[in-house]
């Protein structure tokens, strides 16, 4: 029967009893499902674009929001997301190697590569859990000022710059002070005293010393706390004289002025479904939760499906069937998940 399809005329081919698409029913349906799922994600990302385009207020810059790495201090813009992207690409490669092994009916190869794919999937899910946790806890929090005022701050390169704020503009706190202030606001003794591992309640941004300092301050009234420095343009980009002014540090008298202009009801730490410290627009946090959450759920289901198929392969099910096409179908799904992440990475973090 080899080459049978090639010898068919057009009439014969479309006249039934033949497979004009050259794929099995299952694979065809997997492709159709992926097209419809891609439209769902396309719709979500387009909606994100519409809201972002429609927004009159500045939109947060990805590299300024996502710049932390676990266990490390300092600024590593986009490194963590790049790592997540890399993990997903590598797990996509191991999956395609599993599919390739399947085409050679190589059971051991399928089990090995599909196993690696599952591990990669778990790594990605874990990374996303950290990312969400960091996004939800925030890095210091912020508030809006209740009147317009002019202050002088210092740019990252040490240059001085004069900034004029209007009522409702955002000012951010440094992470150490912000966390201490948050705990003080939450009420005295519930302070984030260091746990046995020396992490604070947030599990990040903790020095060994930080925990005990805060514990000592636990009974300090939040109203009596004053920051050493405040940050302007922490998450958004402002252009002034063709220079982009980001993370302008304000200290001394001007810092006091800003702190006194704090509208108390606007103080936000991190993000939830109602408010977030990253942007005036709540849609920013909501899209983050929905788009990355929906993608994460796809990864989760992918991992579950991969585990089931891995067990089937282990039990020799595909040798009984005589073909490993199931690997190819779940492979399509897994690559699709990678594909979606490529777009989420671009439109949510980079652009």
């Amino acid at each position, binding site marked *: *029967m*080899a*080459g*049978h*399809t*090639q010898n068919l005329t057009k009439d014969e081919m479309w006249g039934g009893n*033949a*497979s*004009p*698409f*050259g*794929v*099995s*029913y299952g694979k*065809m349906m997997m*492709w159709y499902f*992926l*097209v419809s799922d891609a*439209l769902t994600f*396309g*719709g979500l990302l*387009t909606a994100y*674009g*519409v809201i*972002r*385009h*429609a*927004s*009159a207020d500045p939109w947060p810059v990805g*590299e300024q929001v996502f710049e932390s790495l676990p266990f490390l201090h300092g600024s590593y*813009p*986009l*490194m963590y997301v*790049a790592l997540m992207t*890399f993990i997903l*690409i590598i797990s*996509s*490669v191991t999956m*395609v*190697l599993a599919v*390739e092994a399947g*085409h*050679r*009916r190589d059971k051991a190869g399928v089990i090995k590569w599909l196993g690696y794919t599952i591990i990669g999937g778990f790594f990605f899910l874990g990374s996303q859990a950290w990312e969400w946790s960091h996004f939800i806890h925030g890095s210091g929090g912020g508030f809006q000022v209740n009147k317009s005022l002019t202050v002088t701050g210092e740019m990252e390169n040490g240059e001085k710059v004069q900034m004029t704020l209007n009522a409702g503009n955002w000012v951010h706190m440094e992470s150490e002070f912000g966390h201490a202030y948050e705990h003080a606001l939450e009420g005295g003794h519930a302070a984030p005293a260091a746990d046995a591992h020396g992490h604070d309640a947030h599990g990040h941004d903790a020095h060994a010393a930080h925990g005990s300092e805060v514990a000592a301050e636990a009974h300090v009234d939040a109203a009596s706390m004053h920051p050493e420095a405040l940050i302007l343009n922490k998450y958004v*980009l402002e252009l002034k004289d063709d*220079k982009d002014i980001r993370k302008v540090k304000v200290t001394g008298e001007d810092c006091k002025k800003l702190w006194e202009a704090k509208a108390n009801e606007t103080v936000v730490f991190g993000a939830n479904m109602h408010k977030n410290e990253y942007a005036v627009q709540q849609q920013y946090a909501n899209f983050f939760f929905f788009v990355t959450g929906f993608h994460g759920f796809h990864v989760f289901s992918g991992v579950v499906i991969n585990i089931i198929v891995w067990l089937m392969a282990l039990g020799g099910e595909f040798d009984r069937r*005589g*073909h490993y*096409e199931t690997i190819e179908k779940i*492979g*399509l799904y897994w*690559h*699709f998940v990678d*594909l979606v992440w*490529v*777009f989420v*990475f*671009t439109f949510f973090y*980079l*652009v």
Partner: protein
Amino acid sequence: MERDDLIVNDSYAINNSHTNEEGKAIRKKLYNVTVLLTVITIIEVFMGVFFKRNGTVTWETIKLGFIVLTLVKAAYIVLIFMHLGDEKKILKYVVLLPYALFILYLIFIGLYEGVSFQELNSTWR
């Protein structure tokens, strides 16, 4: 299953299996694509981190660059990893054309509406 058996000649058909030599060639291609995807991701991150400070290249150009690089990555994933490139022409078109049509329309209408919203926002607030 009967109908699937008619497509034996397709190298990815159910009851066709690859030889070790074929496997070797495919793996070589896959490794090359892996390197390419990784390099593109690294370039994207560097663009995101460094280019914004550079006044000589406008942000619009960078954005366009991101989108082009993303589409290149997507094309390699779909055509090589999902080997849609090796499928029959008719399957390629049935998957890609309706999607392209829909998504271009969606993007057009999204941008159009977004711009309109923004104008209304800044005019009336």
